[in-house]
């Protein structure tokens, strides 16, 4: 068939690039994950051993892996709803007819998204400093007890969640605003004539109409939040007492700090499987609510 040959011809460049820069590294990482590639193997390839699934097995037996997974899940379970609430709230406020200076606020709320995470994290680290930080200074001034934000294992993760939500909510806010603007105004008009309260309007019009947007945004956010790395890397280096070590941070330490690339690849694949399962479950759940 000529058309199909032409089609193949057209997508070949893209396929080659994808294969070379995406598929090949993934396959290489999969191969690495069943070996014990490390410093010694780097020095002399004869020191490389095929270990089958031992890297995976060893990881599943490591308390640190489970605690890192726990921290990551904690980050996702608390962070994603918070992030969505903040984004939706900000989008509704900006979308409201009462709002003034919309372009200014839109830009201001979106600004943290486009600034580099490292630069902002350094500033927040100062704000959160136990002794000299502005946040504790303010708490102290109004007579509230101060908190050791980044030094206390119980508070470090909530602090990072707060930071990440602040940093990322603007991105979803923009998407939500587009979704809100797409809802026909006559629906609200009809509801108002029927005497629906603001809450009822939100529940029965806004939320259902936003459902597809909501689904996409939550899947993107969940998969993004599972890959938590930069925040703990810059703010706490996984501490205190490894309370902010995420799965990806563990992978980074295994691979780039200690050069155990076999073990690091295994971490990456386990994380991939988990994320795949979670997003698949989310898609399924969302389909259940729809009429078949």
């Amino acid at each position: 068939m000529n058309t199909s040959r032409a089609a193949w011809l057209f997508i070949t460049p893209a396929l080659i690039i994808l294969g070379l820069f995406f598929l090949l590294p993934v396959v290489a990482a999969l191969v690495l994950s069943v070996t014990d590639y490390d410093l010694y193997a780097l020095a002399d390839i004869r020191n490389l051993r095929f270990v089958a699934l031992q890297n995976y097995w060893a990881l599943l037996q490591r308390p640190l892996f489970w605690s890192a997974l726990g921290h990551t899940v904690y980050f996702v379970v608390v962070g994603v709803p918070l992030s969505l609430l903040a984004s939706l709230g900000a989008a509704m406020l900006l979308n409201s007819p009462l709002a003034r200076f919309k372009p200014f606020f839109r830009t201001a709320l979106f600004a943290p998204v486009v600034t580099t995470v490292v630069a902002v994290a350094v500033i927040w680290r100062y704000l959160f400093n136990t002794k000299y930080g502005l946040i504790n200074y303010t708490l102290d001034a109004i007579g509230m007890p101060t908190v050791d934000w980044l030094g206390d294992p119980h508070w470090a993760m909530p602090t990072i969640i707060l930071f990440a939500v602040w940093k990322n909510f603007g991105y979803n806010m923009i998407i939500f605003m587009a979704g809100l603007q797409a809802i026909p105004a006559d629906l609200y008009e009809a509801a108002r004539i029927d005497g629906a309260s603001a809450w009822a309007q939100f529940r029965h019009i806004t939320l259902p109409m936003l459902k597809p947007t909501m689904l996409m945004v939550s899947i993107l956010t969940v998969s993004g939040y599972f890959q938590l790395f930069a925040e703990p890397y810059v703010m706490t280096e996984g501490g205190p007492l490894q309370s902010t070590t995420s799965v990806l941070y563990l992978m980074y330490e295994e691979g780039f700090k200690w050069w155990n690339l076999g073990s690091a690849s295994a971490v990456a694949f386990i994380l991939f499987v988990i994320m795949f399962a979670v997003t698949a479950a989310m898609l399924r759940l969302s389909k259940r609510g729809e009429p078949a």
Partner: protein
Amino acid sequence: MIRATRLGFVAALALAGVALSSCAKEESGTRTLQLWTIGREGEAVQQLLPEFEHEHPGLHVEVQQLPLTAAHQKLLTAYAGDSTPDITQLGNTWIPEMVALGALEPLDARVKASKVVDPADYFPAIWSTNVIDGTLYGVPWYVDTRLLFYRKDLLAKAGYDHPPRDWAEWQAMMAKLAQPRGKAYGVLLPTNEFEQLLSLALQQPDPLLRDNGRYGNFQSPGFKKALAFYVSLFKDDQAPMMTNVGVGNPWAAFGQGFYAFYLSGPWNIGEFRKRLPPEQQGDWATTPLPGPDGPGASNAGGSSLVIYRASKHKDDAWALIEFLSRPAIQERFYQILGDMPPRRSSWTAPALRDDDKAAAFRDQLERVKATPPVAEWERIVTEMQLVAAQAAHGDLTIDQAAAEIDRRADRLLEKRRWMLDHGHKATP
């Protein structure tokens, strides 16, 4: 968003930086030496190099400064990508790792023939960190050991006219100084730094690894004694449960009397001189680390200069090492930066001899001990500190913690055992 691609990007950037530096154009007739430094040493060495280049016309030294946090990773990446420099500064605990890679040039013959580098003049334990399985791979550049900075005035107020001589006396002092409880402390031991516990552990007769570095030896009576002492300081509120991030500004806290002792290294002499007000300069001093019963050992830290096997200018590289090893140059290096020289003859220079704060270090350097020369050491000691911090928190007993450190050390040493058992040389 927080993407893994970032990592790849960062790695690529690091490689690109390395690659860029290696494609630097060589002018005709001049040879370029690549010297990598870690941390602040790069700035100081820049001031010394014009003299070296003046002595060796046709030789140009290009300095690359690596930040401390990224140095280890960059050195490994450079090796993996075949883009190592000619010479690099290397923390002496990293030497075994680089030797395991077979990346370093043996230096015995060059030292034998050298008129400048005299092994007998160096502090023996510091020299020994550069010798792996009987072969020399580096020349010590500066030394670093941990001892006590303390507040003389606070100690005098508590009724002591001398620094502590052993653990018992030190602990008695801290008990008096850590008042009111929870507001003031005896000593600062940041829970995320392993050097403090390591120093206490090195004071014990038991080695930290056994059977030629095949297994951990953390359940030895000696290590348990050190760990118990370390943990007791937190239990009795004599040391604050803080990481160095939590402390924020340790110098100001020391000046305010938040703690009276600080177990730290020589760079803090300069920091305290800079950061404490003039009227407080007479209130602080340094003293060798007290041991379980009398003056104790401490860690043999510091940096060495090594030549990479892949270097094409080994003779020029050696000339630079000799230049930086001259006592007169080391003295200037000390004046610029405060890095302490590894040679006894450099210490006769007035700047060091007459410095009362440096004298304690001179004394301590005769009593330092090297850590086990295995490639996995950095990782083992990191795990040691993580478990020790849990013990300090009270989550583990001393016995449980010691057993857990051994378990983790044995796991990390598994590959080394396999290499040794199968006749692969763990250190070529």
